[in-house]
């Protein structure tokens, strides 16, 4: 069984795409949680799903169509938050249900791609094509590089937005960059863990890292490592035991999270 795994192209493609995505998710998640914007990936994932459905209807690369729709949607969320003066999660609820409604409508136009669509609903990393692997690597690298390149500005505005604004940090451009990067990450995650679990990928490892970290830099490193661990181990487990990869990945993430909470509580009670 194991030797079969190691020579399988599916397996290595999944590992490669998954690990790049893991780092991007780990980094992004920390900023999203601390900006109290954890639900944005949930809202965007529904829109990304509508993009996939549209791609299938048009018979044109669903991942690309989804990427375009999701990026436009992410900018729209920012506008909606500002102009409708809505709290962030209300704008996201509108977007999520709108995206899902669009997906259902598109599916009803052509019923024959139900099976394919299921792959995006529940994730199907082992079915990922080599084009998609390259796309994932390039985009995940882009997310990582942009976050690291703007690290100090992002940290400044996440910690103290108003002062950062006065200090000349380009807060609104960085807001845009952050939602666009989230949109890209969500679309990539859709292929791997699916619509229903993609927001877990950005939130859970970061939440685990927040339990332990003694500095912001450490939080980013831990979050990426936890995310990497969950995705790699999840893929191996699913291949070895024939389990759904998406569920394995999310279970492992939550397992790591619970372990960090438990470990932290234990350490505190031992101190007392």
């Amino acid at each position, binding site marked *: 069984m194991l030797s079969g795994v190691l020579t399988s192209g599916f397996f290595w493609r999944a590992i490669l795409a998954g690990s790049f995505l893991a780092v991007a998710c780990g980094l992004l998640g920390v900023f999203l949680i601390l900006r109290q914007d954890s639900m944005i990936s949930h809202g965007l994932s529904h829109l990304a799903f509508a993009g996939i459905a549209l791609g299938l209807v048009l018979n044109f690369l669903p991942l690309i169509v989804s990427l375009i729709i999701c990026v436009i949607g992410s900018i729209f969320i920012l506008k909606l938050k500002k102009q409708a003066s809505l709290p962030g999660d209300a704008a996201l609820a509108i977007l999520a249900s709108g995206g899902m409604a669009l997906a259902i409508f598109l599916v009803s136009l052509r019923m024959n791609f139900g099976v394919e669509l299921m792959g995006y609903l529940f994730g199907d990393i082992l079915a990922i094509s080599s084009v998609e692997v390259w796309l994932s690597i390039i985009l995940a690298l882009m997310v990582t590089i942009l976050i690291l390149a703007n690290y100090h500005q992002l940290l*400044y505005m996440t910690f103290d937005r108003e002062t950062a604004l006065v200090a000349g940090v380009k807060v609104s451009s960085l807001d845009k960059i952050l939602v666009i990067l989230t949109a890209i990450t969500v679309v990539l995650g859709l292929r791997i863990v699916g619509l229903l679990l993609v927001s877990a990928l950005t939130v859970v490892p970061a939440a685990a890292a927040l339990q332990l970290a*003694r500095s912001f*830099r450490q939080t980013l490193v831990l979050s990426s490592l936890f995310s990497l661990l969950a995705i790699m181990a999840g893929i191996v487990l699913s291949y070895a035991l024939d389990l759904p990869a998406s569920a394995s990945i999310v279970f492992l993430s939550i397992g790591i999270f619970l372990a960090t909470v438990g470990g932290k509580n234990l350490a505190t009670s031992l101190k007392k």
Partner: protein
Amino acid sequence: MASKLIETQDELDKSKEVIKVESVYFSYDGPLILEDINLSIQRADFLAMIGPNGSGKTTLLKIMVGLLKPQAGQVFLFGQGIEEFEDWYKVAYIQQNATHLESKFPITVEEVITSSLYASRQMKDRPTGWRKERVEHVLRLVGLAGYQKRLMTTLSGGQQQRVLIARALAAEPEVMLLDEPTTGVDHQTQENFYDLLGKLNHDYGLTIAVVTHDYGLVNKHINQVACLNRKLIYHGRHEEFCQSAAFKELLADGHHLVMHQH
């Protein structure tokens, strides 16, 4: 520390205008919050902005740093219209409740200061080791030497406030604007905090404007007072303010004042 904070008061051209507010009107979709405000802050001034709750003090401060745009009137920073002004590193702003941190934010004292250094482009072309020295220096200035690796969330409110002052100083500002900086900390901490501001103003010629309810605590350090209540009731020298009608009105409003003689 570099140029701005080692100049002595004698060397400063005190007549230079740092901030000028000209006929400013402001409202948030309703009644006027500020009406015809004219105010000028000279270099090395220490100005206290006082007035009852809802008098527009915070709003005026936010207008001075460009966070709010007045419906009419103009603001000049270092002689330049605020719309064209680009040297924001010269202006340090410390907002109200700045220390009400998200309780989980995992940021160290060093990271708080460094992130602003990089963001303000102060790090350009600096030799290695400069950043560490700068962080050390500003922490010493505010009395928190050795606190670099401490998490912000483990500090007291007063200590957090000092870290924010240190962060502001690291960018070598020429003027510091603070909005009720000592809300929610005890009396002794407040007094120490204003002593620190007094020292920065007196020893380094840093221009300071502070919105405050603690007039009794700050008055031994300041040289200018602006008393607001939608309109500017009084603006001028601190000593003359104590004899003015606006001061008596303030006392009648129940402000707790302990006067210090210069």
